[in-house]
């Protein structure tokens, strides 16, 4: 187990190194990075000053070394627009994004799990078909558009929820729902198919023969086992969460890391963008690692060697 954790940690570091390398190479392959590091209306002197200051006149391997050691020390460079360390900005905004997480998870799970279970239990009935239709729409509908439709219905038409920005508890509902929609269809399909598998096993048949109430069989015996594959995919959902945060925060003007990412793109704030991408990668890898390790503890059938 320790060997496994160590191995995974090492893999994570290698992956981060590759991401950093790609960022480094992309900035240089497509022109002078000094152009990306200064405002578009900068004069030639300013540009050269930045170039010298960032060491861009030195050979590539020296630059790479400086870049990588900076990352190790937690120095991701300064944002052009905010004139502050980019990492600092990231961690200032991170809590706002994390505040959306519990509610959006709750919304996604409380819609997806009952629907998936019922669809599997009542397989082939109209309920299953409705669930199937929701999944088809859920996969095909762009989430940014769902967000705008929600704003139209709840903020313009019914006028009951605020259309954006942070504020009281009501401000959380629409963004959290939008963020939740990124995983509803996926979780539901997964629950349905793994429920169908579990329903077919001997121990479920035994429970039913034993005369256990049906709902108890479904919700206790089956669901527990059907949830395992969903937990495995949690790591994948984290990646989806980052994408979801970018889209959701853009629509709802939510001051989290997603919004920060898009601001960096819109203002061509390259140091900030590069910091956000690297830090996102760190978070995704860390969560995936934790999930895999927890999974190994929860499910002893899995062997890691």
């Amino acid at each position, binding site marked *: 187990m320790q060997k496994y954790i160590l191995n995974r940690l090492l893999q994570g570091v290698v992956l981060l190194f590759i991401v950093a390398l790609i960022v480094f190479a992309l900035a240089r392959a497509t022109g002078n990075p000094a152009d990306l590091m200064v405002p578009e209306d900068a004069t030639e002197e300013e540009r050269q000053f930045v170039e010298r200051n960032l060491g861009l006149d030195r050979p590539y391997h020296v630059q790479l070394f400086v870049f990588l050691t900076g990352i190790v020390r937690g120095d991701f460079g300064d944002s052009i627009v905010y004139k502050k360390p980019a990492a600092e900005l990231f961690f200032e905004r991170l809590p706002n994004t994390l505040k959306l997480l519990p509610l959006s998870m709750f919304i996604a799970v409380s819609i997806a799990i009952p629907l998936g279970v019922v669809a599997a239990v009542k397989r082939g009935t109209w309920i299953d078909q409705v669930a199937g239709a929701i999944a088809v729409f859920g996969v095909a509908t762009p989430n940014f558009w769902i967000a705008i439709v929600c704003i139209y219905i709840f903020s313009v038409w019914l006028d009951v929820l605020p259309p954006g920005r942070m504020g009281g508890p009501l401000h959380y509902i629409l963004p959290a729902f939008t963020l939740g929609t990124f995983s509803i269809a996926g979780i539901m399909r997964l629950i349905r198919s793994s429920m169908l598998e579990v329903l077919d096993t001997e121990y479920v048949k035994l429970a039913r023969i034993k005369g256990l109430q049906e709902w108890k069989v479904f919700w206790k015996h089956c669901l527990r086992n059907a949830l395992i594959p969903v937990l495995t995919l949690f790591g994948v959902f984290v990646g989806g969460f*980052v994408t979801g945060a970018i889209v959701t925060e853009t629509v709802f003007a939510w001051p989290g890391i997603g919004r920060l990412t898009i601001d960096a793109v819109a203002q061509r704030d390259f140091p900030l963008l590069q910091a956000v*991408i690297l830090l996102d*990668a760190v978070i995704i890898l860390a969560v995936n690692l934790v999930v895999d390790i927890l999974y190994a503890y929860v499910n002893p059938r899995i062997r890691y060697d």
Partner: protein
Amino acid sequence: MASDRIETGVQVLEVSGERQERLKYELKRLPWIPVVIIVIMVFAAIFAPLVAPHSPTKQSLRDKLQPPAWQAEGSAKYLLGTDILGRDILSRLIYGARVSLIVAFTALLAGGAIGGVLGLLSGYAGGKTDTFIMRAVDATLAFPTILFALLLAVTMGQGLQTVVLAVTLILWARFARVTRGEVLGLKDNDFVALAQVHGCSGARIMFVHIMPNVFNSFMVMLTLHVGLVILTEASLSFLGAGIPPPTPSWGQMVADGRAKVATAWWISIIPGVAITMVVIAFNVFGDWLRDRLDPKLRQL
């Protein structure tokens, strides 16, 4: 099944009749609504200049924010209304279909080719090559590719090539994984062993002997991913990192109307409906094709 019946020589003659029967049956089960939507979209995209009633980029401030024709103040001149700058939404939708399909076509071709070749290699060669390629696949799939797309948009500048490159980066890994799985299933067949005994080179076995057997799954994968590509392009354009204006694209049209949802809902809502309809159409058609050609891919 026709093939079950051709056990004796006598029955061979029946096959052609049987085939026709089967074709009729298949046609009956063809998902007609999605097919019609796809045909309309492709037609509109190819013949955009002939079909579009107005120019997609010409602004006419006098006609700005016209509601769709079925609304009380709408006029037949602009069937789906106009946007903030008075551009005809229907015409922009038609030209936007062009952008979506160009991106889908090129990215699927590139991503499919790269992923297909790497998947073949990974599955056939095995060992270190396999581990290396599959690690790269896992990493690509775990990392939100939208971040790479944004990075590309800033470093390379916005544009069609950037979007295609970004989408290709997403696609290759999925194609590589599925192709590899298929190859692993085929590799132990006698025909591969025979080719090896015969002294065929690895490349020949991969491309001449194995590849034709992967082709069906490959076609199914291509169709099933059109929707994903259209959605990704729309998201990128919505976020301002996709197709730059004034070229119309559906995601960008939704973004255009964001500030005006309260007064002019149609600017954002209509392109979104178009995206959803087209993506569902491609997905349903892909599902049908999969059931028809390659039912074992069902878990996808």
